[in-house]
């Protein structure tokens, strides 16, 4: 009994000093996060209610303008266009494109020749590790007026297309798909490897067709991974800036201006920092909502 009591007591005592030690271990992290992350997040909220500007008559005096930035924002057709662009960009390039191709490649790669797998995997991953700006350059060159894409088309007697001007959104969506597919592929490869072989084999023995196996066995077994992956790529794509900015600069007009690009233009080109932060606040809220849904569906254990 005594021993038990002593054992029960011990962790409690340790707990107190643990809290002290933990505080020391976590102090630098807290400090940096407060200065550079949590602080700026709160400031984002505050600034979005001000007329903060870098130049012009308003630059000298900072004052609260209430919801002015937000009413202006919701009346701004460019803002509405950029929200729509963000949704289109994220949905087609990440949720549809990267997930679909990532799954397709991971699925087809199963039980294939080892060397072949390695070569294909390497090519896809090379696209992923390439820095965003270089990816943008590669695609500008690929889709340029005298670029590779038009050269390929000319083989079929098709006239050259000014991709970045005629189909700007399609261009950036394809470029982002190209870049991001490797991530989904690797996630799905790990998940598909976890499916026990005999389950699928048994289904085939019972006369199930290939598609029935995929539809009723493979996909349900990696359902959780699919959901998680969709959420992760959504969040990664929400903040994409350099790729779009380098390829199209958000244009022509505002046709490829997603929220980060629009925010950048308002804050650092037009120097309307207050308005810019109001836009980034919307971006933060979008990210926060997506993140909460993600944590909820993920049911993370810590």
């Amino acid at each position, binding site marked *: 009994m005594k021993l038990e009591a002593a054992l029960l007591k011990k962790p409690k005592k340790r707990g107190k000093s643990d809290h002290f030690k933990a505080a020391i271990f976590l102090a630098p*992290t807290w400090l940096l996060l407060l200065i550079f992350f949590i602080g700026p997040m709160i400031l984002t909220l505050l600034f979005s209610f001000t007329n903060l500007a870098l130049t012009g008559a308003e630059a000298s005096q900072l004052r609260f303008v209430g919801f002015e930035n937000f009413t202006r924002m919701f009346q701004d057709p460019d803002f509405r266009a950029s929200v729509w662009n963000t949704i289109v960009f994220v949905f087609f390039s990440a949720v549809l494109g990267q997930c679909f191709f990532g799954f*397709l490649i991971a699925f087809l790669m199963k039980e294939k020749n080892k060397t072949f797998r390695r070569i294909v995997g390497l090519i896809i*991953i090379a696209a992923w590790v390439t820095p965003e700006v270089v990816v943008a350059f590669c695609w500008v060159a690929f889709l340029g007026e005298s670029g590779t894409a038009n050269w390929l088309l000319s083989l079929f007697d098709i006239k050259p297309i000014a991709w970045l001007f005629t189909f700007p959104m399609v261009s950036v969506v394809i470029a982002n798909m190209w870049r991001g597919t490797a991530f989904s592929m690797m996630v799905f490869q790990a998940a598909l490897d976890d499916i026990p072989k005999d389950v699928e084999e048994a289904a085939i023995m019972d006369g199930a067709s290939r598609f029935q196996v995929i539809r009723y066995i493979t996909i349900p077994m990696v359902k959780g991974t699919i959901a998680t992956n969709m959420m992760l790529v959504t969040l990664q794509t*929400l*903040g994409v800036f350099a790729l779009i900015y380098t390829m199209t600069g958000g244009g022509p007009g505002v046709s490829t201006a997603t929220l980060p690009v629009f925010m950048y233009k308002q804050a650092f080109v037009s120097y309307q920092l207050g308005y810019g932060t109001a836009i980034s606040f919307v971006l933060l809220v979008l990210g926060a909502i997506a993140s909460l849904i993600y944590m909820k569906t993920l049911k993370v254990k810590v």
Partner: protein
Amino acid sequence: MVQKGYKVEKFIHYLILSILAILFLLPLLWMIFASVDPGAIQALKMPEKITLDNFKSILSETAILRSFFIGIGISTSQALLVVILCILAAYPLSRYTLKYKNSFMMTILFMTSLPMTAVIVPVFQLFLYLKFQDSLIAMTLFLTASSLPYGIWMMKNFMDSIPLDLEESAWVDGASIFQGIKKIVAPLMLPGIFTVAIFTFTGSWGNYFVPYILIQSPEKMPASVTIFQFFGNFGMVNYGRLAAFSVMYTLPVVILYTISQNFMSKGFSLGGATKG
């Protein structure tokens, strides 16, 4: 019959994969071919003769070399800082029973997914106010903070998989907590440490947005920003040099990933927590 259908199916699989691989390779191929082609153009073409002139002309410019060293400096110090801070932060979260642990980890996970692009305006203001603009050190600290949440999350998961017994026996032998971390925990979780370091380095190396906004002097810009000088500035694009720069700029990351491929794959199995 079954055997034949199976073979046809296999063939189709190989075909689709090959086509996809070629499509994925084409845009990259241009970069590689153009970098060694003295007469590089926008379209993909076989170089008539292979030369290293594009690389030579880039390497002879001190401004470009400097930007590479600055980039390496920023990314290396950021990766080091992130690793050290994350080990320190992950330790109590992995080893102690803390009341606020769950909510802390949840906050960390939540922050992981916020788009960093969104806080740049207040950070820019902060830098102006504190006279930090143009300071590479302050910018590195900001970048460090931005990769902490993800780093802590990964590091804690890696640390959880290391048994406590070894450490406890070290304590019995008179080692302090820090000695325990240095001599026992850190060596055992080396793959995890490398994963976090490489992730941080690559993210930082490719980051164009943050230095572009927080740094003003052209001579302090890292390689991720100076790459733009080949593009558009003078109307004509020098494709050969642009491609050569791109190859050199991509190389460090490719090398890092090739070295680390063996233990990186573990990071992609989203773990038991995701199956539900």
